[in-house]
């Protein structure tokens, strides 16, 4: 393997794909579950696609994009914000969407907070996750600007707190917390459902996506989509084994326009991806 | 005014070297004692045992009424400190703090005496202490070098800074390990005069390891000779002729063993 063709002879998936597919999971939402548990996913994919399925669990989207760019990786699993971000610099094609029911961003406050109405958020501290996270950064900022009509850059104090966000919220160090689905789940598990009050519930976010590098042929993409959908149950079980967040998910064929809302969100959050595309 | 009494001291280094093999003697106040012996005969080791820098393996060393060996073994730091405050030492290899100033190095001599820790530094020592240190430096002829860094002095000059440091300590007992080895003949005599002057003046006890036989004979009130870790000569027991002195350095194994045996009998 290494830099070069994209994987050797075309013997995979009934002759449509290279005999080796190099797959990376970019840690769709930080690192959600133990990487080791992706082994099942790896073997399922290898089996249904009839390829050598080389697998890397990568915990950083920058690295994932660079690896595709440098022809070190053929196929990638990422979240919606990452798909858009990576797509802005590298030529990739979306293949399979993984819809996660209830995957959205919310804004919550402490139960006894005097913030009663979204308008009260003016001038308040809001805890976010880390830069580029779908449900913990881009999603909420879009929510604040789009739904609430508040300028996230000037009218609220958005703080990227990374791993300290939940502790900081519970300790009352911030006024509100932009919590993704999994953050809500964590709040429930750790502090109980009474520990927060839902202020704004955001719309569902686009699907996670399995995408391929531009070097993978159209036929191969089609073959992958077909075979994965045919074995939906198996693939979903394997994904669920890797991460509970894939509970109750479903698979579907995905197109690029599904992510236009994400692009708007980036723009709303103050990151114009066109700049990047222009530069490239 | 403090007597020094050494009884059956042995010292074995961790690597097994028997550096001192059972040495006993008493030294009375005011008695300028000179320790002779060939290289490696155990002089430095014996001196270091006397103020507890090394722990003698067996035996006892009484300074005043404290047994240094026992105190070391019991880790009785208070007692050891008390002994050391009364015992000044000049080191064979000077052991200055090279990157500090000369006056600062001399001032360290009073470390055992001062009670207020900040008084240890050149810039914060009391006026009296600084003046005293300057006087000590002057006594060894180095007052011109007070502000220089110790490392930049010549070998002999460093040796003399070490002596000044000991002088500032104003000890009751002086252990000097080849204090004049690196000194020129005139300075060497001046330092010996100085040492013996304070011995007489304050009735101190001095043990001085030396290799210069002429100086030893001229100054020594008492000469003690070591060979291979044994005490083989003591002018307090039997006066020593120049010939015998020269004999001390002959490397004659059998004879030495014999002498050691006799000596062991004598002191036991």
């Amino acid at each position: 393997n290494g830099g070069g063709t994209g994987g050797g002879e075309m013997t995979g998936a009934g002759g449509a794909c290279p005999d080796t597919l190099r797959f990376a999971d970019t840690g769709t939402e930080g690192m959600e579950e133990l990487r080791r548990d992706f082994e099942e996913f790896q073997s399922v994919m290898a089996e249904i696609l009839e390829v050598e399925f080389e697998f890397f669990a990568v915990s950083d989207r920058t690295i994932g994009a660079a690896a595709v760019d440098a022809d070190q990786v053929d196929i990638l699993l990422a979240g919606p914000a990452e798909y858009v971000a990576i797509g802005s610099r590298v030529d990739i094609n979306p293949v399979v969407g993984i819809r996660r029911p209830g995957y959205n961003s919310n804004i919550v406050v402490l139960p006894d907070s005097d913030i009663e109405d979204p308008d009260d958020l003016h001038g308040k501290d809001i805890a976010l996750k880390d830069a580029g996270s779908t449900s913990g950064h881009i999603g909420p900022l879009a929510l604040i600007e789009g739904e609430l009509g508040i300028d996230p850059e000037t009218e609220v104090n958005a703080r990227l707190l990374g791993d300290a966000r939940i502790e900081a919220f519970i300790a009352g160090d911030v006024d509100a917390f932009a919590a993704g689905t999994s953050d809500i789940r964590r709040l429930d598990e750790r502090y109980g459902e009474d520990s927060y009050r839902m202020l704004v519930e955001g719309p569902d976010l686009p699907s996670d996506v399995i995408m391929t590098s531009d070097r993978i042929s159209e036929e191969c993409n089609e073959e992958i989509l077909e075979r994965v959908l045919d074995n939906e149950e198996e693939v979903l079980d394997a994904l669920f084994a890797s991460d509970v967040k894939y509970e109750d998910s479903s698979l579907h064929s995905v197109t690029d326009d599904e992510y236009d809302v994400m692009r708007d969100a980036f723009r709303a959050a103050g990151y114009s991806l066109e700049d990047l595309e222009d530069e490239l | 005014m403090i007597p020094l009494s050494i009884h059956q001291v042995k010292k074995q280094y961790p690597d097994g070297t028997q550096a001192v093999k059972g040495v006993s003697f008493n030294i009375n106040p005011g008695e300028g004692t000179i320790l002779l012996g060939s290289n490696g005969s155990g002089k430095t080791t014996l001196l270091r045992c006397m103020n507890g820098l090394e722990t003698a393996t067996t035996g006892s060393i009484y300074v005043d009424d404290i047994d240094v060996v026992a105190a070391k073994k019991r880790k009785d730091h208070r007692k050891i400190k008390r002994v050391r405050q009364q015992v000044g030492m000049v080191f064979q290899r000077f052991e200055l703090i090279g990157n500090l100033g000369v006056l600062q190095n001399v001032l360290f001599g009073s470390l055992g005496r001062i009670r207020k820790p900040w008084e240890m530094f050149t810039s914060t020592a009391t006026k009296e202490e600084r003046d005293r240190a300057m006087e000590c430096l002057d006594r060894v002829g180095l007052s011109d070098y007070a502000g220089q860094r110790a490392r930049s002095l010549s070998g002999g000059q460093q040796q003399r800074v070490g002596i000044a440091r000991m002088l500032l300590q104003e000890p009751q007992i002086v252990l000097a390990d080849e204090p004049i080895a690196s000194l020129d003949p005139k300075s060497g005599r001046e330092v010996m005069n100085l040492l013996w002057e304070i011995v007489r003046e304050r009735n101190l006890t001095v043990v001085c390891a030396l290799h210069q036989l002429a100086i030893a004979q001229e100054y020594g009130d008492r000469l003690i000779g070591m060979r291979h870790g044994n005490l083989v000569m003591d002018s307090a027991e039997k006066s020593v002729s120049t010939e015998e002195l020269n004999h001390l350095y002959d490397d004659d194994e059998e004879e030495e063993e014999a002498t050691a045996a006799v000596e062991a009998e004598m002191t036991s």
Partner: protein
Amino acid sequence: MISTPERLKSKQPNRFQMPSISWLIVIAIILGFFARGVYSAEMTPGRIIAGIGNIGEFIAEAVPPDLTRFENYFWAIVETFEMALVGTVAGVILSLPVALLASDNTTPNQVVRLVTRNLVAAVRTIPELVWALIFVIAIGLGPAAGIFTLTIDTIGFCGRFFSERIEEIPPGPVDALRATGSSQFGITLGAIFPVAFPSMVATSLYALEKAIRSAVILGIVGAGGIGVELETAMTMFRYDEALTIIILIWLVVLGSEQFSTIVRRRVI
């Protein structure tokens, strides 16, 4: 003086000393780990050569650095520097006593030494993130939590390196001060710190540099700083902005090295 090789040969040390069985086992195990590590990397020269071409493109993207947000970055780095300075200074000061307790030649006793060493190791092992969380829980978001985290970090680092340097101090000058009957405090201030000082300066300034570089932690505790900016630039693929930040940090690092060199020149 004619050499008799037979006699000498018996005294000549052996060329090789067979290491003990336990050492051989340890070495074998380590070699095993090493081999497995190399094997896992699957490094082939071809792979490496093929790859090098790819890098040019990446670099082209970062050059020239994007200076539009320079002013923001400049103030972020000033802010970071201030917090890092406070955290590091506090950490260095706390590391001094810790290192003295943890060093073979200055510890009051071996139990204290062992406990301190293991504690320092534990402090290092607990990830920064955990410390940050602890401080956020305890005192809330903000610079204070970040500064405390950096302080702890510094203790883990300086505590170990100070101690290791202290153990390397040659015993001579220390003995010299000990011989004056000085307290341990006096010895420490007089012979330990002055000798270890150049190294401690270097270590401390490295700790400061480390604090600035790892200032992401300040972002996590909501104190802002340059770390967040760099991380954001990287995740958003703004390599040219990242380069600007890296150059800024590099200047600070160089400044601290320069400072280190100047201070050390004056004291070595």
